[in-house]
Structure formats: structure tokens, C-alpha cells
């Protein structure tokens, strides 16, 4: 594993609102400008060195703990360092197109995606949505076949929290296995149809279309790992997001503040596409 002796801190603080460990330190080595280190406060260290991702972890961590970091913020950062835009969003496939559901932690991205999964809809990704451009437009790359839910959401949707397995033995978050019978998971890139941004909760759910700078800024707020990018990467991100906001509809969603009514968000999304 490469060392990070002479390095500059490029980010210290909250990595991701949903991160298990709120504070991490990201460093860039002086001797090898393409080598980055990510130190979690629980002792887990990742080193990104060109095409290699190295990792070491504390004795009391489990492989599942490390996988949670790797599959979330770490690979999102690898994508961003390679110039791939990734949004903090879940993705579902409707009529052959991917629709992203973006939003802050706790706003209901995975809950909404799970509601769609229960209806037999293909899931494209959960939490990290990488976007690539091809001749015909923007595509969403699939993530891994799991949806991650907190225990109260699992209890509401599946009858009991322990109806779903724990993501790791040391954390309260659970997961839906999309390789199980009855679920569908996208196996390849899916053309992007539009983006819904979960912006708040209200008694009556609603949807409105965002335009111009309002749409672009709504997407910029939900770009993965933005705070750990340098100026040239941020400029590239701005270009990608403004192109995205011009290419597909961006809508703002207000969800009901009641887990029992989570299905109404799906109804609203489907209705808005008609």
C-alpha cells in the first residue's frame, strides 16, 4: 500500500450526509499528484493511486464495513477524479428510460426506489448515479443490486426491520437484495429520461418543473463528492451539469411526510411523465 507521507489536506469534514463516519480527511500526495488518501476516523484508510484502490482497516472493522465505504463515497470519488459526473441519487427505469431521484439524506431516495422495486420496476442504482454522454445523449450506469434502507423504513414497508438483512454487523442500515426473486436490476447503461429532486415534505405531494439556472443549481447541490474536487474539476462539473439541465427535464418533488404514503411519490412521478 503506497504511503502518503508528504501530502496536502484537500478536504476535512463531513464526506457525505449518509456517511457512517461523519468526518474524513482527504489528502493529495505532493510527490504523486494522482495519488489521494481518504482517512476515516475509525481508522480505515483508502489510497487511490492511478488505477489502483488500496485499503487498510482497523482490527475491529468488518469486510462489510470496508465494502460500504468502497461502494459508496470511495468509488464515487474515483469516478469524479476520472471526470465522470455522479449524482447523489437513486435511479429507476420507466418505459426504457432511467429517472433519477436525487435529494439530501433522509428525503426518501431509496424509499421511493424501493417502492418502485416492489412494483416490479427495474432499479438502476442507489445512492450514486454515474452519468456518461454518448451520441444520443446522457446515460446512467448501473450501480450494484442493493437498495439501502433504515430500520424504520424497512419496518414500514416489510412489516419488521429485521425482515431485511443488515448491511454490516456494526450498523443499523439494512438492504433489499435486488438479485432475489421478484426484483429487477438494470444490467447495462440506461438512457436518462429525467431527474426528480426531492426538495421537501408536505401534506399534499407536488411536482414542478425547474428551468435554466434553477435546474442546474438544484443538480449541483446533489453532485457526489463535489467538495473534494479542485477548481478545474469543479469547472468541468459545472459544464456537465449545465449540459444535463439543458438536455433532460429536471423536476422538484415534494413528498408526503408519512412513510405509509411513500407510494404516492411513485404515483406522482409516473403521472408527471404522462
Amino acid at each position, binding site marked *: 500500500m503506497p504511503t502518503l507521507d508528504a501530502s496536502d489536506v484537500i478536504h476535512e469534514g463531513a464526506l457525505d450526509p449518509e456517511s457512517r463516519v461523519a468526518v474524513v480527511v482527504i489528502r493529495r500526495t505532493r510527490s504523486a499528484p494522482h495519488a489521494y488518501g481518504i482517512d476515516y476516523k475509525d481508522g480505515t484508510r483508502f489510497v487511490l493511486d492511478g488505477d489502483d484502490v488500496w485499503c487498510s482497516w482497523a482490527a475491529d472493522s468488518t469486510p462489510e464495513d470496508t465494502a460500504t465505504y468502497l461502494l459508496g463515497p470511495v468509488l464515487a470519488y474515483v469516478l469524479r477524479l476520472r471526470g465522470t459526473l455522479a449524482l447523489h441519487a437513486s435511479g429507476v427505469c420507466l418505459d426504457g428510460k432511467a429517472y433519477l431521484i436525487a435529494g439530501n439524506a433522509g428525503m426518501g431516495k431509496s424509499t421511493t426506489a424501493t417502492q418502485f422495486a416492489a412494483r416490479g420496476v427495474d432499479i438502476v442504482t442507489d445512492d450514486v448515479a454515474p452519468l456518461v454522454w454518448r451520441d444520443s445523449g446522457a446515460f446512467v450506469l448501473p450501480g450494484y443490486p442493493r437498495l439501502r434502507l433504515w430500520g424504520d423504513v424497512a419496518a414500514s414497508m416489510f412489516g419488521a426491520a429485521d425482515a431485511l438483512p443488515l448491511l454490516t454487523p456494526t450498523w443499523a442500515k439494512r438492504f433489499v437484495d435486488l438479485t432475489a426473486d421478484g426484483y429487477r436490476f438494470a444490467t447495462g447503461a440506461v438512457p436518462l429520461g429525467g431527474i426528480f429532486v426531492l426538495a421537501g415534505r408536505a401534506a399534499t405531494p407536488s411536482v414542478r418543473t425547474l*428551468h*435554466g*439556472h434553477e435546474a*442546474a443549481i438544484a443538480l449541483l447541490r446533489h453532485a457526489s463528492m463535489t*467538495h473534494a474536487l479542485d*477548481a478545474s474539476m469543479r*469547472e468541468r462539473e*459545472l459544464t456537465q451539469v*449545465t449540459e444535463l439541465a439543458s438536455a433532460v427535464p429536471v423536476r422538484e418533488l415534494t413528498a408526503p411526510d408519512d412513510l405509509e404514503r411513500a407510494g404516492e411519490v411513485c404515483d406522482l412521478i409516473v403521472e408527471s411523465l404522462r
Partner: protein
Amino acid sequence: MNRERTLRLSEGVIAKTVGEELVLLDYGAGVYYGLDAIGGRIWQLASEGKPLGAIVDTLLEEYDVTRETLEADVEALVGDLTERGLVR
């Protein structure tokens, strides 16, 4: 309004158009700003080095608006941009 004033766009501010509008990123502060179509046009003309008087004259040809209203709008925007450190 000082018609001769030329705005100097601050370093570290990145601008991209989206449709007719503009998104600004103040990289140092990590803050995004949005400008509507007229605000975006004012930014574009300012970035070409045009003084405020020439910006107002250009916009008067492009929009159906009185000089008095336009000058007040340009002054308000310039004040806002200056206060936020986006122009000097």
C-alpha cells in the same frame, strides 16, 4: 449610474450558460449563483469589457423597457454582484 464604470470579474468565478440563463460558481467560497436571462446578458457584456453605459444602451435595443427601469435594474444587479465579491 457611472456610465464609464467597467466591471472587473473576480478571479475564481466560473460562469456557464444554461439556456439563456447563467450559473456562476465562486470556487473559493464554494457557492453557486444563478442569473436570469437579462442578468446573464449583463454578465456576458461586462465580460467583454463594455462599460455600464454601453451595457444599458445594448440592452435597450434588445428589450422593451424604459431607460430609467433598466438603469435601476443594472445598478441593483451590479450592487448585488459587488457585495458578493463576484465583480469589482
